[in-house]
């Protein structure tokens, strides 16, 4: 769209290098440790009388060495678009020549960090759906080159697929805006991202800088000691409340800041077989998700925001996600009515609540054992050695409530074209996994489960990691056997075609 490339398929330009400004960026990115080290070194050297000029010269030398290596890496890295493939060559002593066949290119995403945005560079990633992270990374090229590359690579990709398909996925198809987040909603969603973890992180950083700037640990302790003594005299309910209020306020602020940094200006657009989303305040990310890459859909409702009718829609893709779970967020904070058309366009069936069936009643029992009885025993034992551990016993009524509510929130069903699972007491998650994307089914029975005659069915999909998968916990053993048999039967009936291929 941005650059009219007509004869893209037959392009055979000589190999290109990355943008030379990459050298500068790389050495700057590598140098925070050097820059941060300056005050530390200065603080130490004050007593020893090492000449400051000498130290600075050493650091300059270090920077020059880093620049040289960055230059070397830039010099030896080339990429070339040939008919039907992309070739990336790199390495000085061991030359690596990697060719990515056009039919394996899923899509091209563009990412810009703060530094890159300032000087107009972008990182281009060629998504192949393979496991390797760095398979097709061009870090960095100029922004215009990034757009050009995307158009060209899409050209050779659709050139391949259009031969088989009807070819209606033209490049100049207009993108329709599916979802965007205004600033008011962004702030609103930030309020629900309340996190105390960030406060801890901030204090950690303050501590680090305090040390780096030459404050002694003793001085901190002294300050804390004075504060403590001052506080002790007037420590009462109102002080405690205001401290708690401050902590909550900081937690809210931290959540808002994090959300604004991550999802500022979120826009989801759709064209043909692709979604494209852009987000980020400082680091601008633009990711394209091809529909056939989508393995499963997940609607997540937060502990508080979910009760107020807000939810997030995520999809799991073969690759291309920065997140550890391998998921991509197509709508971070939306109403169900806004999500429905996105889910439909993603080729996923709607999540139906009525046919869902509960798991075994012993699910509650196992929750009681795992969440309440066992922790209580452990905590009581720990209290004999370390008395403050008793404080954690106050959490037990809370875990008891979770254990009791667990079964009510956990349901599953084999729908017409997908297996659907819902789980979670606080944060509720609804999974939709099309049968075509189920890879392996595993049935696990731990010692407690075997005692109770229960089994957990885990559904493995491509690209999924972590504990929050579409698993069905604690089915009755006979029920589990029937469920697995039925599921495998449906998977087989679909053969190996993914739902998007069937379209």
């Amino acid at each position, binding site marked *: 769209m941005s650059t009219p490339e007509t004869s893209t398929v037959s392009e055979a330009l000589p190999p290109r290098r990355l943008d030379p400004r990459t050298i500068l960026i790389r050495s700057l990115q590598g140098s925070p440790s050097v820059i941060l080290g300056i005050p530390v070194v200065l603080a130490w050297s004050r007593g020893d009388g090492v000449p400051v000029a000498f130290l600075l010269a050493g650091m300059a030398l270090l920077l020059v060495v880093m620049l040289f290596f960055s230059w070397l890496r830039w010099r030896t890295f080339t990429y070339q678009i040939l008919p039907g493939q992309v070739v990336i060559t790199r390495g000085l002593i061991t030359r690596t020549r990697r060719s990515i066949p056009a039919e394996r290119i899923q899509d091209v995403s563009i990412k810009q960090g703060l530094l890159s945005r300032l000087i107009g560079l972008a990182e281009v990633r060629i998504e192949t*759906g393979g496991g390797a992270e760095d398979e097709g990374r061009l870090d960095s090229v100029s922004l215009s080159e990034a757009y050009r590359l995307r158009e060209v690579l899409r050209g050779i990709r659709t050139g391949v697929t259009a031969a088989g398909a009807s070819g209606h996925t033209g490049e100049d198809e207009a993108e329709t805006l599916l979802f965007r987040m205004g600033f008011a909603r962004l702030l609103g969603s930030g309020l629900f991202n309340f996190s105390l973890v960030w406060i801890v992180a901030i204090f950690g950083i303050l501590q680090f800088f305090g040390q780096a700037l030459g404050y002694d640990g003793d001085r901190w302790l002294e300050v804390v000691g004075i504060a403590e003594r001052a506080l002790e005299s007037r420590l009462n309910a109102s002080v405690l409340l205001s401290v708690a209020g401050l902590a909550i306020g900081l937690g809210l602020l931290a959540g808002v800041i994090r959300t604004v940094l991550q999802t500022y200006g979120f826009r989801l657009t759709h064209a043909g077989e692709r979604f494209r989303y852009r987000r980020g305040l400082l680091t601008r990310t633009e990711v394209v998700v091809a529909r056939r890459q989508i393995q499963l859909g997940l609607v997540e409702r937060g502990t508080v925001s979910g009760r107020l009718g807000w939810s997030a829609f995520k999809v799991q893709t073969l690759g291309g996600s920065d997140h550890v779970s*391998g998921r991509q967020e197509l709508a971070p904070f939306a109403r169900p009515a806004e999500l429905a058309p996105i889910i439909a366009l993603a080729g996923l069936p709607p999540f139906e609540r009525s046919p869902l069936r509960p798991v075994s009643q012993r699910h509650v029992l196992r929750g009681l054992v795992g969440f309440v009885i066992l922790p209580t025993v452990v905590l009581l034992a720990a209290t004999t050695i370390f008395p403050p551990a008793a404080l954690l016993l106050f959490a037990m009524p809370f875990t008891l409530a979770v254990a009791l509510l667990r079964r009510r929130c956990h349901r599953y069903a084999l729908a017409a074209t997908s297996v659907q699972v819902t789980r979670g007491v606080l944060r509720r998650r609804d999974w939709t996994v099309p049968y075509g994307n*189920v*890879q*392996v*089914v*595993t*049935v*696990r*029975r*731990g*010692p407690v489960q*075997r005692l109770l*005659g229960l*089994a957990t069915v*885990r559904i*493995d*999909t*491509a*690209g*999924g*990691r972590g504990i929050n*998968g579409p698993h069905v916990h604690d089915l009755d*053993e*006979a029920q*589990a*056997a029937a469920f*697995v*048999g039925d599921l*495998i039967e449906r*998977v*087989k009936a679909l*053969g*190996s*075609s*993914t739902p998007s*291929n069937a379209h």
Partner: protein
Amino acid sequence: MAFEPVPLQPLERGYLTVLRIRAAIGWLFVAAMAAVADGFLQWRIGLSPGVVTGPFVVFAILSIVFLVPGRWRRRGYAFTDRELHVASGWLTRVHIVVPVSRVQHIDVSQGPIERSAGVATLSLHTAGTENSLVVLPGISRRRAEEIRDAIRGRISDAPW
């Protein structure tokens, strides 16, 4: 026991030998370290020889005679032409079902111990992330190749 959607076949008798040899090698290392500790303690504090090594040897023999067969018995497999079932685990029992159409590629391998016992290992690679590799050890080489050929015939037209 209770969860068995298809009747499982036991693994080859030879695989029990393989497991025993492997366990014996592992225990041999442990026993060697225990013997060194024994010698050291005898030299320093005059402990009578075999105090440390003895219990280890007893436990090793018990393990090889009783525990290893238990583990072997828990393993099983079934190939129903359209899916492969692999069961294993002694304390936590795991039963994996791999639809044949989901297999990316297959290896049949045979290590030196396995070769002497006449068994082979069948490895199935899938596109899944948690179970990207499903391993079925302890079947005869002929059976492994049979299964491989049966699966190979079905995955040739898979899209990825």
